[in-house]
Structures are given as structure tokens and as C-alpha cells.
């Protein structure tokens, strides 16, 4: 008798799992709609995830260059490559430059795809105005990890 009860309970639990899998998307949508209707969307979930990434890059310049000029050049070229609409969700700034090592660290802030776009834009930026060539070496979410890489820190 007990074995029948065990089989029935197993069948019921399997059926409930299948129903949840089938209706998962509908339930998710219904919960989201409920959150929207109750007006707590801003608290419950964000519009997009704002991710911060750091890029360590090698900077190859034929002439001496200071951080201000490099920053202006790179920002102008990257803006031109990414376009204004993409720049709404994606920002790139140079935060550190070591001319003796030819290394620079860039900060990328934006959604998940932003770092991918910025890596490509940094790689192609010298095509726009023939400025310094920037070769991205390493990407990380932690600034301290990048500073340790290849003896960036003094």
C-alpha cells in the first residue's frame, strides 16, 4: 500500500515540476506586470545593470604625450566610433597613465555589452585621427588586480 502512495506522490511532484517549467515564463511575466502595476518597479528591479570594468592597455606613441592630450584624443575618437546613442549607456575614461611603462588604465561604466564595444573602439581609435596606438592587454573588475599586473604599481 505504502509503495502505491510513494509512486502517487512522486508522480504528483513530477507533474508539478513540469507545470512550473511550462508556466515559468508566464508566471515571470505576471509577477513583473504585478510589480509594474503596484508602482514598485524602481525598487524591485533596475532598468539595466550598471557594470564597472577596468582595462589595462599598452600605449604606443611616436612622440611624448601627456595624459590630458591622450585623454582628449581617445575620448574624441571613441565618441566618434561609438556614436551618441551608444554613449548614453557607455562611458570610457582614462584614470591612470604611466608614460615610463607605456601603460594606461581605462574605466568603462555601462551595461554588459559596454566593455566589449569599448575594447573594439579602443583598438580602432587610431584609425580616426592617427593618434597613439592603444593595445588592450587585460580587463578586470578590480583596479587593484590590474595595478599588480606587470608591475604597474611603483
Amino acid at each position, binding site marked *: 500500500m505504502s509503495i502505491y502512495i510513494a509512486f502517487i506522490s512522486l508522480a504528483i511532484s513530477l507533474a508539478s515540476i513540469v507545470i512550473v517549467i511550462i508556466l515559468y515564463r508566464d508566471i515571470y511575466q505576471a509577477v513583473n506586470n504585478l510589480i509594474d502595476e503596484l508602482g514598485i518597479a524602481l525598487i524591485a528591479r533596475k532598468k539595466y545593470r550598471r557594470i564597472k570594468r577596468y582595462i589595462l592597455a*599598452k600605449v604606443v606613441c611616436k612622440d611624448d604625450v601627456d595624459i590630458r592630450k591622450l585623454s582628449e584624443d581617445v575620448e574624441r575618437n571613441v565618441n566618434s566610433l561609438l556614436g551618441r546613442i551608444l554613449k548614453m549607456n557607455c562611458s570610457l575614461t582614462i584614470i591612470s597613465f604611466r608614460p615610463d611603462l*607605456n601603460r594606461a588604465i581605462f574605466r568603462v561604466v555601462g551595461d554588459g555589452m559596454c566593455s566589449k564595444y569599448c*575594447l*573594439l573602439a579602443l*583598438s*580602432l581609435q587610431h*584609425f580616426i585621427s*592617427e593618434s597613439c*596606438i592603444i*593595445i588592450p592587454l587585460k580587463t578586470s573588475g578590480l583596479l587593484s588586480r590590474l595595478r599588480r599586473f606587470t608591475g604597474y604599481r611603483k
Partner: protein
Amino acid sequence: MYLAINRCNDIAFYITAIDSDVHILGLDSDVIVECFANNAHKLNRDMLFIPRKIVTVDEKRLEKCFEFDKSILMGCIPMNISVARRLAKIQRLSTIIITPNSLKFVDENQVNFMYQSSNRNKYIEVHLQPFLKMFLISSSIHSIEKSFYLLGNIVERALKLDVGIIMSTASDNDKKLCSLTHVDIILFYLGFSKRERRLITEVYPIELLITWLNYK
């Protein structure tokens, strides 16, 4: 990495400044004579010179691709589908070059055709610079999105069928150079995994080099 540099000082600068391991430089024959004939030891590196010739071929001028000495590693840009198919069949070692202009002739079917042909002496060579120039010059003839989509499909197909494919960044301007890391990032952007990128940037070029060294 193929670079078009025409001054000896620039060669030394880019070899030491851009990458640190292996370099493949595309140089004019005049530059080689000028820089390496007498003072090859100046750079203190082991060097191997591969003579190359790149020609555009159509049906009337197909012989142009094979009239030079066998030691020259030929690169042929087909301007016709039938020429592209014939190039895949010919036994001689050469590369079939993809540029935005030859993209519609060297497509996924061409990769299938190369896979079916018996000889392994044919490689696909992608010239990246004309593709990258499309970012700067908005051309109505070629759509950037479509070109990169087709290029990605061809590379994917070639990798799937194990047809040799290499990337070349030969440039006519020494300020607009692409290093190996840049190529890697472009491939990453096109959606290729680390293993696939290694195949394109390291394994197939070495395989082509070994094939060329053993080729007589």
C-alpha cells in the same frame, strides 16, 4: 601581423614597441634590401623572409596567379565565382584572399568546395584593413554590418570544416596598424571563442608556414 612599413627605424620601433613575441611584417622588397641586406643583425632577432605576391585574378588572367616561382607564396584575389572554384582545385600552394570586393565570390560554398577538394595547399586569407576602413569611409556599395556578418559566417564555416584561415592586417599606412591583440579583439567582437581565436591567429599561420617551408 602584416605591416606595411617603409623605413628601417619604424621596423625596429614597431617590433620593440607593439608586440613582444613573434612578428610577421609585410614589407616591400625595396625595404628588405635597404634594411636587411647588410645589417640584419641590427634587430638581434631570428628572421625568416617569405617572398609574397598578391594579384587580382579573373577568368582571363588566371595564369597570373601561377606564373611566378614556386618559392613565392602567392595570394590571389578572385573576382569571379568560377575563378574562385578553380583556384581551390589547383594543387599549387597559395592563399585565396577575402576583401570586401571578393566577399561575394569567396563565400561559405567556396569553403565547402575547398573542404571537398583533395589538396590541403589552399588557405583563406582575410585582409582586415579594407574591412576596417569601411568604419571610416561610409560607402553605399558595401554595408559594414552585412560585410562583417558574411565574414563571420565564412570564418565560422572554415573553422567547422578545418579549412585553414588566416588574418592579415597589411596596411598602406604605418599609422593605421593592427597588432595581433587588435585582431584578437575583433574576432572576440565577432563572437569567436578563445580556442577559435587561437586557431586563427596562431595555429593556421604556423601550419601555413610549415607547409610553405616543406613545399617544393
